[in-house]
């Protein structure tokens, strides 16, 4: 397998309603920014991979058909990924393998969601007929968090502290949706409860936004960008839906995914060998479950990493310096934003003050479904 690198990165400024652009315009804005970053045009691209979560969000079925021309795919291959919330991550991974296979040299990948066109929580209940117990994304993940809290007897302010960290971090990310400033623990605790144990400030917003990346083959990547970001691992793992509602609150697919990703990158101690991570935390408590699933610490110890300040912006292993999914959630794009932010950190180009010093290797992670879909990429400043 040949190496491939990220040579272009672009994203929209994420907001709750992007009323000036339609879907096509919004994906083009991210794509054009990634192309500009790579100093390429649509004509230079060999293939396009797009991703978004359920088509019901925008009411456009199989949108790659309509969007093919908008993304410069006329006469070219275009592929559409959909793996629930992890889709942005799996889409970037797909684009990477398109290049790594040797079949294509330059691949554009775009992930998006325009949630303002419908209503997110309605989508989760759609098509059910009678009474729907569907309770949206928060309702799907809240029981897992509830179980985690009870299982490990975690102090109740630890979940809210994730929100304090991430919303504070978002202030340094000019693209983040959350613009209302840092929040205190008290602010979070006093915000309305939405899906016990997730309060309003502990829950992701619904955002309009898109993310885009350009991957290029190893021989041409250094000619395209002054600082190509190399991919050391690109792994997506899935398990049956019912599995991860497990009593261990440790998603097996996350564990399996991280294990393979570390093996591919030759990493044995992630918190030493990686300088930061962007992980998919749409709701506060999920963060700790992922710390454990991704092997940042032992089972039941995730919350202690935050308690000790390890994963704070100034800590020894910052997690989600961009503000994460809690601060910005255009669902289909959110997974790719994790990958893209990790790549930006390696490149040293994280804007607005959210750059972590001296990042040589970074991890991006996305999950979806009932925490049963996971995607991990590891980026490095050095060609493997």
């Amino acid at each position, binding site marked *: 397998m040949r190496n491939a690198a990220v040579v272009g990165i672009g994203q929209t400024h994420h907001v709750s309603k992007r009323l000036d652009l339609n879907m096509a315009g919004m994906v083009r804005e991210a794509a054009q920014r990634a192309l500009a970053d790579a100093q390429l045009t649509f004509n230079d691209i060999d293939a396009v991979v797009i991703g978004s979560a359920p088509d019901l969000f925008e009411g456009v079925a199989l949108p790659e058909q309509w969007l093919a021309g908008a993304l410069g795919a006329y006469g070219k291959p275009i592929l559409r990924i959909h793996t629930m919330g992890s889709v942005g991550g799996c889409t970037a991974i797909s684009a990477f393998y398109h290049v790594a296979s040797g079949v294509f040299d330059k691949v554009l990948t775009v992930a998006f969601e325009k949630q303002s066109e419908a209503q997110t929580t309605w989508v989760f209940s759609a098509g059910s007929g*009678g*009474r729907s*117990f569907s*309770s949206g994304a928060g*309702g799907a993940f809240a029981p897992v968090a509830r179980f985690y809290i009870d299982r490990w007897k975690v102090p109740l302010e630890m979940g809210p502290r994730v929100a304090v960290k991430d919303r504070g971090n978002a202030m340094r990310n000019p693209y983040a949706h959350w613009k209302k400033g840092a929040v205190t623990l008290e602010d979070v605790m006093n915000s309305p409860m*939405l899906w016990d144990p997730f309060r309003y400030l502990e829950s992701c917003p619904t955002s309009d936004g898109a993310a885009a990346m350009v991957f290029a083959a190893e021989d041409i990547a250094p000619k395209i960008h002054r600082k190509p970001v190399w991919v050391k691992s690109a792994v997506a793992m899935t398990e049956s839906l019912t*599995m991860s509602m497990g009593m261990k609150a440790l998603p097996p697919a996350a564990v399996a995914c991280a294990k393979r990703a570390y093996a591919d990158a030759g990493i044995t101690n992630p918190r030493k060998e990686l300088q930061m991570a962007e992980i998919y935390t749409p709701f506060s408590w999920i963060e700790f479950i992922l710390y454990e699933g991704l092997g940042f610490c032992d089972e039941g110890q995730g919350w202690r990493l935050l308690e000790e300040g390890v994963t704070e912006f100034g800590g020894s292993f910052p997690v989600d310096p961009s503000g994460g999914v809690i601060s910005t959630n255009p669902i289909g794009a959110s997974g790719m934003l994790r990958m893209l932010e990790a790549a930006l950190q390696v490149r040293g180009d994280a804007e607005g003050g959210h750059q972590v010093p001296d990042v040589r290797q970074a991890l991006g992670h996305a999950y979806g479904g009932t925490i049963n879909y996971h995607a991990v990429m590891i980026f490095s400043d050095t060609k493997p």
Partner: protein
Amino acid sequence: MAEPVTIFPRHLRLPYTLTAGAMQSRFAKAVRDEKKIYGNRCTQCKRILVPPDIACAQCWADTEGWIELKDRGVVKTFTVMRVPFYGQKIEIPYVIAQIVPEGGDGAIMHLLQEVEAEKVRIGMRVEAVWTDEKRTGSLADDILYFRPTGEPDMPIEEMVERGWGL
């Protein structure tokens, strides 16, 4: 001059006729006609699937049997829904629990009522309250809700031991 058009309303209506499939239909008919919940057994791990299915998710193996379960069980985990959405048919806030029916290893999702949201616990014992009005075969509609029985909770350690997560 009127404001420019910037939003294009699209009121979509897509019709479907969804069939429950043979096994789910049999399950639904028992709910409708007998007020009973059935499961079936994995031929490999022997665990009882609820609701019944043609294959075990853990073993990727066929299932067998048709096993009557109790319409009472244990709260595996839960959340309280407080978010309104389009077309919502239940008044918020409401408690949604995953309930493992006695005799089974899988969970069904249902409402929990006759208890304050703040008092719901993992491990709580609950029982079904059925509707006597025209039942349709949908567990969501034919059981109105579950309610606590007042018996002692199942300890979380026992739940972990039983491996209900899988």
